[in-house]
């Protein structure tokens, strides 16, 4: 089902309102993901339909094993859907080769993981800078300064992950994920390994990223309280989305 959202905006110097159409930045159409356990096919996603608009923040909730992580990996191009269409900024990930998906990920997707997944040999600065290096535009000191200041990482940049708290590590991971201004930020249980205080800090930062910078965010969570920081909540069960799909 194709969805078009229209909103009214005022153009500068024009008294008449105009209609502007927003195309989804992410569109998932009838996506299936099958895993193989020996000769048995195990479906993790069973025809998921799902859309996210630019600048939207969406929380995906559901019980363990319902397919949330699989959905995130498929959306992020880390795994290939078995069937269906995954359109990220108009590019169909299902039709792409592994190398093409890698390139798309490099330029359009940012990931934040539950276990932070920082590179242990590098400092906080190195962990963020390596994303810029992989992106290919080299180190951008201005962007680096803006992002690290916003996430409150000044003074911790020379520390290694083993020398930082969980909350600090997750902020470094967020900085790494957004340093290249991705179209979509995908967060997989980003507060799952944090205490309440650090969880709130991280969630607040994600909200600020969304509200202040217009960063599109899709987050997977178990925590109902975490969803209050997001525009929209989508529930999943048994590999399908059971509500939260925007209406026509």
């Amino acid at each position, binding site marked *: 089902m194709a969805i078009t959202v229209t909103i009214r905006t005022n153009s500068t110097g024009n008294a008449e309102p105009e209609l502007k159409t927003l195309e989804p930045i992410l569109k998932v159409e009838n996506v299936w993901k099958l895993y193989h356990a020996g000769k048995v096919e195990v479906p993790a996603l069973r025809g998921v339909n799902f859309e996210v608009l630019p600048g939207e923040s969406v929380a995906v909730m559901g019980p363990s094993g319902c397919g949330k992580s699989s959905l995130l*990996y498929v959306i*992020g191009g*880390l*795994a290939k859907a078995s069937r269906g269409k995954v359109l990220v900024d108009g590019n169909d990930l299902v039709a792409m080769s592994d*190398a093409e998906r*890698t*390139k*798309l*990920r*490099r*330029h359009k*997707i940012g*990931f934040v*993981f539950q276990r932070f*997944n*920082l*590179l*242990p*040999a*590098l400092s906080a600065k*190195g962990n963020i*800078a*390596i*994303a*810029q*290096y*992989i*992106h290919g535009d080299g*180190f951008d000191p201005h962007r680096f300064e803006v992002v690290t200041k916003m996430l409150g990482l000044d003074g911790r940049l020379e520390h290694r992950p083993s020398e930082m708290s969980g909350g600090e590590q997750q902020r470094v991971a967020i900085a*790494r994920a957004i340093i290249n201004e991705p179209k979509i930020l995908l967060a997989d249980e980003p507060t799952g390994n944090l205490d309440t205080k650090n969880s709130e800090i991280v969630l607040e930062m994600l909200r600020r990223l969304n509200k202040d910078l217009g960063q599109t965010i899709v987050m997977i969570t178990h925590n109902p309280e975490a969803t209050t920081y997001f525009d929209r909540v989508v529930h999943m069960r048994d590999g399908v989305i059971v509500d939260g799909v925007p209406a026509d």
Partner: protein
Amino acid sequence: MMGQFVFRNLFHRPLRTLIGVVAIAVEVTLVIVVVGLTSGMLQETAKRIEGIGADIMVQAPSAQIFIVMSGSPMPIKIGEKIHDLKYVQYVSPAFLQFNTSGGVETIWGIDPASFRDVSNGFVFHEGHDLQGRDDMLVDDWQARAKHVKLGDTYTLLNHDWKVVGIVEHGKAGRIFVPITTLQELVGGRDKATIFLVRCTRPEHTPDVIGEIKELLPNYPVRPVKEFMTLMTSTNIPALQTFINSMIALAVSIGLLVIFLSMYTTVLERTRDIGVLKSLGASKFLIIRALLAETTLLCLLGIFTGIGLSYVVRAGFLKLFPTLSILITAGWILRAALIAIVGALIGASYPAWQASRKDAVEALSYD
């Protein structure tokens, strides 16, 4: 950034890095020292042969050019036939015996009178020439290495010799005894390993060589002046095989250790590889990062190995002062290249495996 990443990864696990560096260093040292030892021995032997002062050397048909290990005696009467040739001034037979008991040395059995004619005699530090059947001469290096003094008894081949002279090094061997006594001791009566020939004038050397070849077909006849250029491992098939085997062994050590090291590195860094993939790192970038790390590890090993080679050489020379270990820039470079190629081959499979890892599986790896 890539340099920093590679550098930091290398030192993140210092023990692993140390083991890798030591393995490469051993590989490089093995190549440099083995080649240096053989080249040094060959060159040193060649220098001493040239130092005799003869013009031509004649050997038995099946003899090796590396005469110190040669065991192909000829009838000593051949010397008389050579002496009868035109332009031949002197001929001196020598019987060589390779001895490995109590050290590695070649005993030169010489006829003192004819050897003196051919070589213009020894320069004596102490003592006098061979006179009695049990007399022995040693050169100054051998005397220093074995703490031998004039008048000492020197036991070799289960025989007690009396050191009657200490001579300047650089002429033929390091130990000289009367040829007849040595022939009797090893059962080589009336035999000679080589004939040293002196021509009436040096420019007659090619003519005399031609005549000897006509007289003794199949007998290797060589101008002594060319001996240095001929004494290379490539002219001694067994030695070249030995060197190749040692190089192969050294490369195997380096290759296997690097393979194991990088294999465990890839396993240990599975999650990191998943992270790099999630950031959009290409397969090529992951391979490049691991191979760059291997190269850096290898360079550290090479520099350590070069240093270690000099330490090993110093140790060897302290223990065995008569040894000669020739460390050349050419072989240092070759050893370095061998180490780098071996290490890159060893690392290529783990690197390729890393690049092919499934990102989702890698990210969930514990």
